[in-house]
């Protein structure tokens, strides 16, 4: 059994994913979870992913957004807020 990955490491990896996808593709919480599970295999479980998402949101590195569904993105000024 491989060593488990820490929440902090998963959070950092997720943050990078969001950063790289920004402007190209909006990622959902479940996309992040799926990608992480693919990378780390049995070294990570769903709870770790959940905790990692909570960390990137609560440290304000990322924010939830909504456009017909919920996404996780980097914080940015709202397009619609501009006149």
């Amino acid at each position, binding site marked *: 059994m491989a060593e488990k990955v820490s929440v902090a490491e998963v959070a950092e990896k997720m943050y990078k994913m969001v950063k790289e996808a920004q402007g*190209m*593709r*909006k990622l959902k919480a479940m996309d992040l979870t799926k990608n992480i599970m693919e990378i780390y295999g049995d070294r990570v479980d769903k709870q770790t992913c959940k905790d990692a998402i909570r960390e990137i949101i609560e*440290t304000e590195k990322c924010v939830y957004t909504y*456009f*017909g*569904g919920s996404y996780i993105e980097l914080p940015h000024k709202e*397009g*619609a807020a501009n006149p």
Partner: protein
Amino acid sequence: MADAPKKRTTDIGPPHYEQFLPPAIKKNYGQWKYHEILRAGVMKHVAENGDAVYTVRAGGSRLMSIDKIRMICDLADKYADGHLRFTSRHNIEFMFTDEKKIDTLIADLKKIGHPVGGTGPSITSIVHTQGWVHCHSAATDASGIVKSVMDAVIGHFENMDLPAKCRIALACCLNMCGAVHCSDIAILGIHRRPPKINHDLLHKTCEIPNVVSACPTAAIKPTTVNGKPSVTVDEERCMFCANCYTVCPSMTLNNPLNDGVSIWIGGKVSNARHEPMFSKLAIPYIENNPPRWPEVVEAVVNIIDVWKNNARKYERIGEWIERIGWPNFFKLSGIEFGKMHIDDFKHAGLTFKRSAQLTY
């Protein structure tokens, strides 16, 4: 976490309901034996031990100011020891044990403009959406039509003079935040033109694969316009649902010349007698005519009158039409049947008449 925010309270959920229950309700929780509707909007619930609670139900407008909420609170303080509840259809209920309070409460409600009714075989408050008051995809206003219709049918709110319940609902676009699709009468805002695409902005505001997959008829394809990634819409396949607009603000469907409402009838959610069923199309299009949409009001009143005059006791609109047949409904109501009434989406074949059991 260098700059950890100060401790915030989160995830506490709603307050526990028990603290809000009127004393007689709390005492007899789970011990109710039967109820009677004393008159429109006034109910008496009797517990196993003989305790009785009276409920007065007032019609509300869904859109309420805090000023009105405070006035209603004043009445709750005066009549119901500071307790009140709302129903799933925006009505306000006051509960108390002293029968003598009923008439004065009703009079006080009248003074602040709220009628009492909406119980039994009647029309109760219309559930509806935000419309032009607050929604980006509204094809019509919600509150204005609702107010105009209720002004016209308030007699059926204040009197239980219909064959059965009649549940009216309004949604201002196909998104149906108001989930009107199982109502006796549903008023549904509709767009009739394909989205206008802002090719300059689209690649900045929208994610193209999401936009493509949002289309129920696969009418949207990725493309490039003036060197910028964008989408095209096969207008022949567009049925104006606005789902693309929900995921992409650069594809607007709002169109003052063509937006309007459609009317759907005969749905229900209750299991009583007939199983739950969807509402079916009665009138494909009525143009927006603010501020009071007289054509919509007239159409709704006509449907109610025809049903009231022809249905048997306990028959809701859908049950009545199922008995007499749709051809008879169109004949009696004077509504014209046409191509748009015939379904052409998935499983449409199941809605074709597949027998010789016909009326003439």
